[in-house]
């Protein structure tokens, strides 16, 4: 279990580096090094924080809460063939709402600064996460119908080669929908541009404008872990194999994660950011795909 947490904590910033390199490759540049995020976090940890006079304890607590919540969520997910240390009936709801808790505190911290830019980012984040949570839950519903269990480990663990052959349309739809939700939750293009710091165009970046030093380091790290966790969810869903040798399984899993990061990089390079009123259409589209998968699953199950 310790190994599992180590893998999770150490490996996640590397994925964001992969994304950056892929985008650079498409643009014909060399791009930042793979370990860039490690350097950034290390650098920020050594700096001091500047706190505005309008902020309260929420502003200082939010980065800590978000990192902790996401790390706890990482405990609930089976990664590759590593089983989840904590599993119980209904842990999906805890999973989704741990993310919700992190998001809640981030929004509050953004509002805490009293600046209009953060407020704008916060309101957008709140609106889009409302829609994406519904889509996420619908995906969970499909998986619950398919695997007849209401625990994350049961849902994902039940995906084997057999279920791929019988339930392929549903699973493909769930995968597509989850990929779209991954893009939404991690503020990737086409939802939000992580590279721009134009206040009017960003959602996530807008909320963290005023954080500095270790706080910013924690927030960046939380973002990386979030990507790792959600991506891990998706990859474990996609990989139909079960390896009895945990090392082998982990290696394949990590390879899959790198591949996913590269895929996200490709999507980011190929598309432009959507206009804000089209973002809701995007999320509704993912919702409709998930509902279609649900209908197929229900039709097959009964």
């Amino acid at each position, binding site marked *: 279990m310790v190994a599992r947490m180590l893998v999770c904590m150490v490996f996640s910033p590397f994925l964001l580096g992969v994304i950056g390199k892929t985008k650079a490759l498409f643009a014909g540049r060399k791009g930042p090094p793979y370990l860039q995020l490690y350097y950034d976090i290390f650098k920020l940890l050594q700096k001091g924080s500047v706190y505005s006079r309008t902020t309260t304890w929420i502003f200082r607590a939010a980065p800590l809460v978000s990192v902790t919540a996401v790390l706890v969520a990482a405990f609930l997910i089976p990664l590759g063939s590593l089983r989840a240390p904590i599993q119980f009936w209904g842990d999906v709801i805890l999973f989704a709402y741990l993310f919700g808790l992190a998001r809640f505190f981030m929004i509050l911290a953004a509002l805490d600064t009293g600046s209009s830019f953060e407020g704008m980012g916060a309101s957008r984040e709140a609106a889009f996460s409302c829609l994406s949570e519904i889509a996420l839950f619908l995906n969970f519903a499909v998986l619950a119908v398919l695997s007849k269990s209401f625990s994350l480990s049961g849902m994902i663990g039940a995906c084997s080669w057999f279920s791929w*052959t019988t339930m*392929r*349309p549903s699973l*493909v*739809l769930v995968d*597509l929908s989850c990929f779209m939700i991954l893009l939404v939750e991690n503020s990737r293009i086409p939802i939000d541009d992580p590279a721009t710091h134009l206040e009017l165009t960003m959602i996530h970046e807008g909320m963290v404008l005023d954080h500095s030093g270790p706080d910013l380091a924690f927030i960046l790290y939380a973002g990386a872990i979030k990507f790792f966790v959600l991506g891990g969810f998706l990859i474990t869903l996609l990989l139909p194999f079960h390896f009895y040798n945990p090392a082998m399984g982990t290696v394949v899993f990590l390879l899959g994660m790198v591949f996913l990061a590269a895929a996200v990089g490709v999507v980011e390079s190929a598309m432009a950011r959507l206009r804000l009123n*089209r973002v*809701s*259409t995007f999320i*509704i*589209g993912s*919702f*409709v*795909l998930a*509902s*279609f998968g649900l*209908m*197929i699953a*229900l*039709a*097959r199950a009964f």
Partner: protein
Amino acid sequence: MLLGLDMALAVIVILAICLLGAVRLGSIIRLFVFQSFVMATIPLMLGGEVHIHKLVIVLGTVVLKVIFIPTMLFWAVRHVSIRRYAPGFFGIGANLLLGGFLVGLSFFLSSGIVLTEKPFSDLLIPSAFSTLFIGFLLLISRTKAITQVVGYLVMENGIFLFALLLLETTPLLVELGIFLDIFVGVFIMSIVINRIQNEFDHTDTSRLTAPEGEKG
């Protein structure tokens, strides 16, 4: 082979849903082309021997819906230099949700229908109904003439899926007749759209003048 059929049917419905979300004329026509191409490969996935009848249908669909009709449609909109925003009445989000609802409705309807012979895939009838309903929704919710034509063609795609159940019943002559009808129909529609474009400088059917003497 049958799993390929399932995936193809699901892709057809997914594309229909994407059509509901598309706003630009170019993307609408391209999505339709992709959907027709997937539809054309389905007779080959049904199992059974591949004889001339099936081959002719596959070839006919490809030639008609992937090559000829899109050419005509693109020709008809060539003067529309700004491929404009054409969302329709309710707005895209509501359209998408309505499309999802219609897909659910078609699943519900199909569960109540009993066939004497088992169909090739249990997804066939729901996806046929879904494509039909979504094509109809596309037709009535949009005001641009080209999107209405594409909606009609998507409806025809849905009906084609039903025809797959009847491959032995409908003689080849009738199938060819249906293809010919669709071709000439779209041909005439394209010419009318072209004339409307020339006369009015737009193809928005809600803005064509109402005939005189309209009462109520």
